[in-house]
């Protein structure tokens, strides 16, 4: 009874730090045909929302994880080909092969997350799994097993009791720096409140924001930039870019191009503090923060080697990655490896902000609303006069562990001069 070979579809690894993903939508049903590379389902992780293409052509024989479920990376989601659930029709009289009953339980492989065993105590497989599922450090759990080993019951009791602090006789756990999220008691809605589950992306954003503030020494400096020349340049280019390339040369693209031209002289701003070393680079992978549908989350796709792109290339690149982010077409590579980030909260008129650094980078640039303001300029005789100028505030939030205020100030000065004296491609 040979059938075509079964191919498993598993939850992909969408970035090194991602350990689980949520199935948001199945694009095929059991029994439907699918071609290799055709999208099979959509998933959401704390890094990226994307489609998962089918690894093979054939029939979708089994769907094992339902929409809305969150599973570990590597978990089997579906099977393409093979005999699947549809058993061959009962043979006439004899059934030669003794078959055990179907075993749904056997089909939930889980990927273990290695647990630190700081104090050298043996952590059994089930304890390791429960610890990783609940984000608990097994070393913080008082053990009652042989030699003080943490038993399954110990860790389940520990989790049930709530916060690690509630454990009475914990043998002085070496407080792991940021205490892993204790499994909080289930939230209860008070009168007038409604509860909604936290999505994988929201959880990822929450963890990253908190970790960033716990890691970097955030300092923000701001400049006011006269955009007169850029407004003029954009006016000239807009028609041509749109007609010829279908690209809108946004102000963000100008700022990004100006930034890319300025960064090489300030390698720490495009650098990283990594352990005992300072990392600098001869390339710029420019992250651009993109908001997904209202409040659904934020993602930072990356424009790789932005130093090789001119204004048109950058404008085009930003519009492409933003579209991919909104259509959930981003691939893992699209969100990894950024070296510097620009965020643009000015769309709604905001004139100032203090963004959070995208770890492990060392700085983030914020662009704000372009507004016409009275501005003191010099007339042709060198006299001060008040003019109406389009102005934009731009902030640089930097990690003061690596970047000093004067260094950041010089970067901002150079950026401002470059933007205010814009010519051609900005160079």
């Amino acid at each position: 009874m040979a059938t075509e070979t079964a191919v498993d579809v598993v939850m992909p690894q969408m970035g090194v730090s991602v350990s689980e993903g949520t199935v948001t939508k199945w694009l095929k049903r059991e029994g439907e045909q699918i071609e290799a590379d055709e999208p099979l389902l959509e998933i959401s992780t704390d890094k990226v929302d994307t489609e998962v293409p089918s690894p093979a052509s054939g029939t979708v024989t089994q769907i094992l994880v339902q929409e809305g479920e969150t599973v570990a990376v590597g978990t089997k989601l579906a099977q393409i080909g093979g005999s699947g659930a549809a058993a061959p029709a009962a043979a006439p009289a004899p059934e030669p092969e003794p078959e055990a009953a179907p075993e749904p339980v056997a089909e939930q492989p889980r990927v273990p997350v290695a647990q630190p065993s700081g104090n050298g105590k043996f952590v059994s497989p089930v304890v390791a799994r429960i610890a990783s599922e609940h984000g608990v450090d097994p070393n913080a759990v008082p053990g009652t097993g042989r030699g003080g080993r943490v038993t399954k019951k110990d860790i389940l009791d520990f989790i049930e009791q709530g916060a690690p602090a509630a454990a009475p006789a914990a043998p002085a756990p070496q407080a792991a720096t940021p205490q892993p999220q204790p499994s909080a008691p289930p939230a209860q809605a008070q009168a007038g409140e409604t509860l909604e589950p936290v999505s994988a992306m929201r959880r990822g954003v929450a963890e990253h924001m908190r970790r960033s503030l716990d890691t970097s020494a955030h300092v923000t400096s701001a400049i006011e930039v006269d955009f007169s020349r850029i407004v003029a340049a954009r006016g000239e280019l807009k028609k041509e870019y749109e007609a010829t390339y279908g690209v809108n040369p946004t102000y963000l693209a100008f700022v990004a191009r100006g930034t890319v031209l300025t960064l090489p002289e300030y390698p720490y701003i495009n650098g990283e503090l990594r352990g005992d070393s300072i990392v600098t680079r001869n390339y710029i992978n420019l992250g651009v923060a993109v908001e997904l549908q209202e409040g659904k989350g934020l993602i930072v796709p990356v424009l790789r080697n932005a130093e090789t792109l001119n204004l048109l290339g950058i404008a085009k690149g930003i519009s492409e990655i933003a579209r991919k982010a909104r259509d959930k077409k981003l691939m893992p590579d699209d969100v990894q490896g950024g070296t510097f980030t620009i965020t643009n909260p000015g769309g709604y008129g905001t004139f100032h902000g203090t963004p959070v650094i995208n770890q492990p980078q060392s700085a983030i640039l914020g662009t704000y609303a372009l507004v016409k303001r009275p501005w003191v300029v010099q007339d042709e005789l060198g006299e001060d006069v008040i003019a109406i100028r389009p102005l934009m505030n731009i902030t640089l939030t930097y990690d003061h562990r690596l970047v000093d205020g004067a260094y950041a100030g010089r970067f901002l000065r150079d950026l401002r001069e470059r933007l205010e004296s814009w010519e051609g491609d900005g160079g």
Partner: protein
Amino acid sequence: MAELTYLQAISDGLRSEMRRDKRVFLIGEDVGVYGGAFKVSAGFQEEFGPWRVIDAPLAETAIIGACTGASMMGMRPVAEMQFADFISCGWDQLVTVAAKQRWRAGTPVPLVVRLPSGGGFSGGPFHSQNPESSFAHIPGLKCVCPSTPEDAKGLLISAIEDPNPVLYFEHKHLYRRIKAEVPEERYTVPIGKARTHRDGNDISVITWGAMVHTADEAAQQLESDGVSVEIVDLRTIMPWDKAAVLESVRKTSKVLVLHEDTHTGGFGAEIAATIAEEAFEDLDGPVKRITAPDTPVPFSPVLEKAYIPQVEDVVAGLRELAEY
């Protein structure tokens, strides 16, 4: 419902099938006039006649060979090995012919071999063995090992109905020791389905046959320690109910596999390996086996007691797992 011994339940099941289906006949050494070495078929020859309750010569090859041929011709033979140990003489007919016939020629071989097995009564090396794992290893054979009167009847009827060769291991030690209510009407117990003999949360014992009762006594002792033991009675070891075993392991995370057969290559090894393979991340301790040692079964009552896993051995094993 009538209260029957394990042995009476076997007789009852066999009689009900012989009354119901003329194709069913019994063949074996002393099964007719004498009524069987253990009296399972007492009165059968009187009721069904010598052509359906056949006294065979001392030749297991002939008995199993005849049954294989008869089953291929549409009969439903039930062979009795006087002792399970003697089945080795019929190995070739059973393993080379009966087990493979379905694959070679597509012919069903609906035969049942009844195997009075197990020790505990100083039967010595030739009358006490539990050879189920040797046959569980042979594709094409099914092996059932009932532990209660109710299952003894229901599994025998399922075995007779089954279109494949089925080895029916009936434990001699249980014959007259175990007594329970057994439905009078005809019923079947599905082959391949385990039964939770006892519900528990802390440790799973996976076992079958007479060891179910040993495990039960041990579990009762552990209750006073506050340890709750679950007992899964496999009932059938081929095909075995993997899903039920894994479900129990996922609940308790600690497992004791218990059998009366010898250690190396015993069926417990297959179960332990499967648990390690498919429930690794649910384990909170090593998978423990308690079995007979790798020697023949001794005659001496003292030695036999040391050989067959006793309640104390199981209690000690369970305590060790509980404390792990």
